[in-house]
């Protein structure tokens, strides 16, 4: 079921410059939501809703959490809302991650691609290793929360200001080398995703990627948020909103 309505913001936090965390009181959508799904959030005075991934689901409290970055004027409008006001949300949308039961997994996130992975860490706890990449120390978000879930958390920064210097694929290779990983789940910029997918192919570990695209309706109707995919040797455009946003990596043609 989808739900569309205005839900009160019960907590607003700033996690880094231009990165905000909202928790909304939303019983019904929270009850349905799965890690990796997303919401279309209305930006006051704008025509299109903005697709924002679900970062946290608390079914007991009946809350959903979104962590997003201000990218333009629409997200700036959303970021200007305050506790007590409400968020106009259409959720939960799309297909979430398929988390294997009782097996070791690795999540790989880059920048604002990190938030949708937190729900996996929450489900899998110590079975989950999180490799999180950021541009520099000022951009780091949610690291503590992955650790609180019991997930081993490896940080990488482009400039080495915190954690390992360089790409997330270096620690990923080290983890995959152990041969214990049942699945990798990744979200982040396209060059990072491509590198992660390549590494997973090398180690023959199944990989799921969460994709982003400019979106219209969020429910599969307008066919604007397409990404080129291949199945049974046939290329076609899938809808990121309805067929994704999480895809099996082998189906995605990143250069399409």
């Amino acid at each position, binding site marked *: 079921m989808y739900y*569309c309505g205005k839900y009160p913001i019960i907590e607003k936090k700033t996690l880094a410059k231009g990165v905000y965390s909202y928790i909304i009181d939303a019983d019904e959508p929270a009850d349905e939501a799965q890690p990796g799904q997303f919401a279309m959030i209305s930006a006051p005075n*704008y*025509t299109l809703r903005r697709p924002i991934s679900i970062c946290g689901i608390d079914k007991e409290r009946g809350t959903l959490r979104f962590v997003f970055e201000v990218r333009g004027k629409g997200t700036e409008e959303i970021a200007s809302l305050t506790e007590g006001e409400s968020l106009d949300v*259409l959720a939960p949308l799309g297909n979430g991650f398929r988390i294997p039961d009782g097996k070791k997994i690795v999540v790989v996130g880059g920048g604002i691609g990190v938030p949708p992975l937190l729900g996996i860490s929450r489900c899998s706890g110590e079975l989950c290793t999180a490799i999180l990449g950021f541009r520099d120390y000022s951009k780091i978000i949610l690291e503590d929360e992955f650790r609180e879930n019991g997930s081993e958390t490896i940080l990488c920064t482009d400039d080495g200001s915190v954690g390992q210097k360089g790409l997330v694929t270096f620690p990923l290779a080290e983890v995959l080398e152990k041969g214990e990983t049942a699945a990798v789940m990744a979200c982040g910029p396209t060059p990072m995703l491509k590198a992660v997918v390549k590494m997973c192919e090398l180690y023959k570990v199944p990989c799921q990627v969460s994709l982003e*695209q400019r979106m*219209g309706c*969020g429910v599969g109707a*307008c066919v*604007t948020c*397409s990404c080129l995919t291949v199945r049974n040797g046939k290329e076609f455009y899938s809808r990121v909103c309805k067929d994704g946003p999480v895809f099996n990596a082998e189906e995605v043609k990143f250069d399409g």
Partner: protein
Amino acid sequence: MVDMSVRIAGVEFPNPVIAASGTYGNGECYTELYPISKLGGISCKGMTIEPKLGNPPPRIAETPSGILNSVGLQNIGVHGFIEYYLPTLKEEGNVIIANVAGATIDDYIAAAEALDASNVDMIELNISCPNVKAGGATWGVTPEGAADVTKAVRRATSKPLIVKLTPNVTDITVIAKAVEAEGADALSMINTLLGMRIDIRTRRPILKNNTGGLSGPAVFPVAVRMVRQCYKAVNIPIIGMGGISTWEDAIEIMLAGACAVQMGTAIFTDPYSPLKVIDGIADYMEQNGIKSLSEIVGQCQEW
């Protein structure tokens, strides 16, 4: 309860609000929010005789009070539509309109013939899609092209035929008259206005197709003007569309000359907007003692 029904080309709609082609899929996407029977009708995603891949992404960009899109008629083909979607649509929906596009006249004829044998209620001839290289709006920008396609499809089907017009022309009334003369039962208008946005950082167009079709509240006054012009130029009914997002917009375009409306972009902003428009029209009718919407169609008194 007021009687909101309207009749177009012999087809009765329980209310005058129709989902516009390309914004509502084939009726399957919003059923988790409300039953599609609430809408007067659904114009299905533009279809071609063969399945079509569509344009590379990005295919959508926000603009002031609107959007640009360049989907390029991605669809599973007429036969796929008839097999997979039409049975459910007919069972759950009211008036089902098949929006048909093509690159050549033969494409249009083949699609119309296949649909003629189906139980779809009406055919909407799309000669106005701005996002495909061959066909689409290339037919709709000249009276000869528009007349040729209409004539050919008219022969291929006895289904009620709506022709959807493009606003990207010098004088839309010339096209309207040309399709009326070839047997169109109704007009729907306007399709999107051709537009473009450029990312100033990358100096690249936002849409991979470079250009796209503009829709949303930004185009509403253009739609009202063109509906008005055509209302005065032809005798067939007009379905008005282009940026309608409130019941007031719906009444306004009906006063201009539309006997029903299609809504599209507004559904992305608020999926419930068509239902709000239906309720708003009902209240307006009740408050103003209007027994039938035909009482207001075209009733704008120009200065």
